[in-house]
């Protein structure tokens, strides 16, 4: 049994964030299915919003787990989340419209077994270990599925593996120009894994406040979404990718200014260092 080393008081209770994050992420993932129903790609940006919702939830889960001092550093929690999540997510894409639900259930099972191994076999004895790793695996799977839906317009295996190349005006199917075949999944794996572990790693300490950390999580999520939106230009129509990019930039700007405000609020003192000092004449 390890000792809690960080205060956890203040802010919203974790269960509220968990339920809100899970429902928001799954509902937003399903909103991308409107692409299939209407026959466009313009709803792809909902996948990116699903990743932001899941990442906000994930940063609070990491806070809950890492406040016990797991000794391996905060990034390791993000890595195990996505390592177990990617497996559940790719398996779930086989199930068509049920994919988000299957991903959540399968990730919960994988997370529970890995949590049991970490807590009992490896003898970590952290009270929230199993629950945290279940949540982390679900978050990993949902975030990766959100990026997949955002970059391809769908979360089904066939559209993740098949892309289109146009040669001389002819559109030909190609496996190389796809989310999986082009290994874009490796890039979004790291985009998500870094975005999930950074907020708590940056905000931990005696002056930790929950709203500031969650705002930073949303900011990291939108920042990753900008990169994913740029990458999605290769896979979906340019106008749909630009909508994603527009939403991501707006979201990033809003959360960034909010985060800076909250950082001002929590800081003891604030010294604005100018980016490059200007050369003064005559010195």
């Amino acid at each position, binding site marked *: 049994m*390890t000792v809690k080393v960080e205060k956890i008081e203040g802010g919203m209770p974790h269960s509220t964030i968990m339920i809100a994050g899970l429902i928001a992420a799954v509902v937003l993932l399903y909103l991308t299915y409107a692409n299939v129903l209407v026959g466009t790609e313009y709803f792809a940006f909902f996948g990116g919003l699903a990743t932001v919702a899941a990442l906000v939830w994930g940063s609070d889960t990491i806070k809950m787990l890492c406040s016990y001092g797991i000794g*391996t550093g905060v*990034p390791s929690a993000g*890595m195990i989340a996505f390592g177990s999540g990617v497996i559940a997510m790719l*398996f779930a894409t086989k199930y068509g419209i049920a994919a988000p639900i299957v991903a959540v259930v399968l990730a919960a099972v994988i997370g529970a077994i890995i949590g049991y191994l970490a807590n009992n076999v490896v003898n970590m004895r952290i009270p929230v270990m199993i629950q945290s790793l279940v949540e982390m695996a679900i978050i990993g799977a949902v975030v990766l599925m959100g990026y997949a839906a955002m970059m391809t317009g769908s979360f089904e295996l066939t559209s993740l593996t098949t892309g289109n190349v146009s040669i001389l005006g002819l559109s030909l199917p190609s496996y190389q120009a796809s989310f999986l*075949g082009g*290994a874009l999944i490796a890039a979004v794996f790291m985009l998500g894994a870094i975005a999930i572990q950074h907020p708590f790693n940056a905000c931990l300490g005696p002056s930790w406040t929950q709203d500031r950390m969650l705002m930073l999580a949303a900011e990291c999520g939108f920042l990753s979404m900008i990169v994913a939106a740029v990458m999605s230009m290769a896979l979906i129509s340019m106008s749909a990718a630009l909508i994603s990019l527009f939403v991501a930039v707006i979201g990033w700007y809003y959360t960034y200014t909010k985060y800076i405000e909250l950082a001002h609020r929590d800081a003891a003192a604030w010294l604005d260092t100018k980016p490059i000092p200007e050369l003064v004449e005559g010195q």
Partner: protein
Amino acid sequence: MTAVAAKPAAGAAVDMPAMIIGIIILLVIIAATYFIVGPGLAFMALIGVIVGGILIGFGVHFVPVGGAPAAMGQAPGIATGVAMLAAGAGLAGLFGGAWAAQTTDNLLVIVITGAIGGGLMMAITCMFVTFIYVYGMGIPNASGKVAKDPITGDTQTEFKSQGTEGHGLPFVSYVGGVIGGLFGGAGGTLIYLMLLDVYKDELPAMMNALPAQILPIAISLAGIFAIGMFLVNAVLAAYNITGTIEGPHDPKFKRFPRAIVACATASALCGMVAIMIVAV
């Protein structure tokens, strides 16, 4: 804060009932896979994935992980966490193995190439870490856990600063790092290779395409699963050593049986799901 002030109290004790439950889960997963896919390439791939996971979990115990205390010169080892170190060595090994897999079909050659990739990465990392410790931070290399270096026989205590657990990177830790890189690279490459064989075999029929067309997807799927399983195994092993270890001479090294059970079970679970993508 989390790394320094909070040394977790997870002891060296082995929880026997939990170990047995872990082994039972492992056997159930192996049996379930056998019943679903039958004796064949896919089942052998699962065994290969489990062996690869065990190699990764065992290899992490050799790597001198120092964490934040090492960065401040208060503990020996490389000044970063296991997830970063293992990912560096394992991915370097994976690149080496994947490169070799393009040119030959010999399993042994590919796995050894992957091992050399991981070992080389760790050797280079350890060398530059030592340069920075000695010439940048001005600290000698001294182990805090043993009085004499088990390999060179050099005494350690007179070089150790008071109030620290040792500092720098003693020779035995360097050797341990390279051995850990070899194991990690070999394990990661083995997982990649096993999954690649299954996907190359099954994907053309499943997606109704030519083997050459399917190759990018098979490589990408096997690669991302190998990375995912590598990270899961490395973090489980990191939890086992509670973050920091000096190398093979550290008393924490004796905890490795727990990590082997945990890594074998976790790899079996992830491997089964990864194989089910094409086999069901």
